[in-house]
């Protein structure tokens, strides 16, 4: 899923400082699963913002709503009747949400309440980790299902570098050295030879480096 973190209340408050009537809009997609922009978090943010503004003596009306997916025009269209009732809309979806909203409702202002961080999953309750860099050319089968592009701090295709120590990356003791894991797995399974070659340089055109990407599936287009 797409993982995100809520922005600081200070930052969100500064975004909405001029408004007295806003909507906080959640999304039932990824941000609900990673507990940052679903029903619950929308209510918490709205309450926190109301408290902050009451404290300042500048009360604010905040309505809340959560739609199925903010990255889908079909659901975005459901806001047609209500979106104009507010001075601004604070979106708790990933970075995709406020953009679909902005494109659909040109006259409204949309503010992101979260920082979209990575593609990953929960390794345990409350802890999410990055797994994919979305480079557009998957090669994890060569590394027994572990991705060095996303998970090596230097995206090395020939690791581990000299900073690998006791299974951890040089950048922090909390970060595993994915190359240590790759090598250990290959050694265990007696397939070290898989790694003993020089890989061709990666074609980054399929990644963000090639420009904004687009995926077309002819059989689905209308």
């Amino acid at each position, binding site marked *: 899923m797409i993982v995100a973190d809520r922005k*600081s209340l200070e930052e969100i408050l500064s975004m909405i400082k001029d408004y007295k009537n806003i909507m906080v809009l959640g999304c039932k997609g990824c941000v609900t699963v990673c507990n940052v922009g679903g029903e619950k978090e929308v*209510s918490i943010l709205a309450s*926190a913002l109301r408290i902050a503004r009451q*404290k300042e003596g500048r009360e604010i009306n905040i309505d809340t709503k959560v739609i199925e997916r903010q990255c889908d025009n079909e659901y975005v269209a459901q806001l047609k009747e209500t979106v104009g009732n507010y001075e601004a809309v604070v979106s708790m979806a990933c970075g995709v949400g406020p953009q679909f909203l902005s494109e659909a409702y040109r006259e409204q202002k949309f503010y992101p309440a979260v920082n979209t961080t990575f593609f990953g999953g929960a390794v345990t309750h409350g802890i999410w980790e990055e797994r994919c860099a979305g480079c557009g050319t998957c090669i994890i089968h060569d590394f027994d299902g572990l991705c060095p592009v996303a998970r090596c701090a230097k995206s090395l295709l020939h690791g581990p570098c000299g900073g690998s120590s006791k299974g951890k990356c040089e950048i922090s003791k909390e970060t595993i050295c994915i190359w240590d894991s790759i090598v250990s797995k290959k050694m265990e399974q007696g397939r070290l030879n898989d790694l003993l070659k020089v890989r061709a340089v990666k074609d980054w055109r399929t990644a963000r480096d090639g420009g904004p990407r687009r995926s077309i599936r002819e059989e689905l287009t209308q």
Partner: protein
Amino acid sequence: MRLSYPSNIKVIQVPCTGRVDILHLLNAIENGADGVYVAGCLEGECHYLTGNIKTRKKVNYVKKILQEIGIEPERVEMFSLSSAMGLKFAEIAREMNEKIKTLGPTPVRKKEAA
């Protein structure tokens, strides 16, 4: 055992502190409570195993939110005690009451109330 505790404290009963949510605490503050605290079972003695431990984390989260918006985080607290500790209950109530009095009334007031 007839123990007195400050009458300005409103007790809301829940089956387990695990039932207490971040939103319950925030709503109390939002609606003008000067303080709110959770009295849960002793750690390790939760009937539902970890309800009290989970709620302690929620209380800490609410404290963080208050801190972020410039409200004394001490207005929200969690205490651990067993249901047999009536004396302690009254003591905590007085302690919390004193603390809130020192902090003064909540800065969160609805306009019509102010």
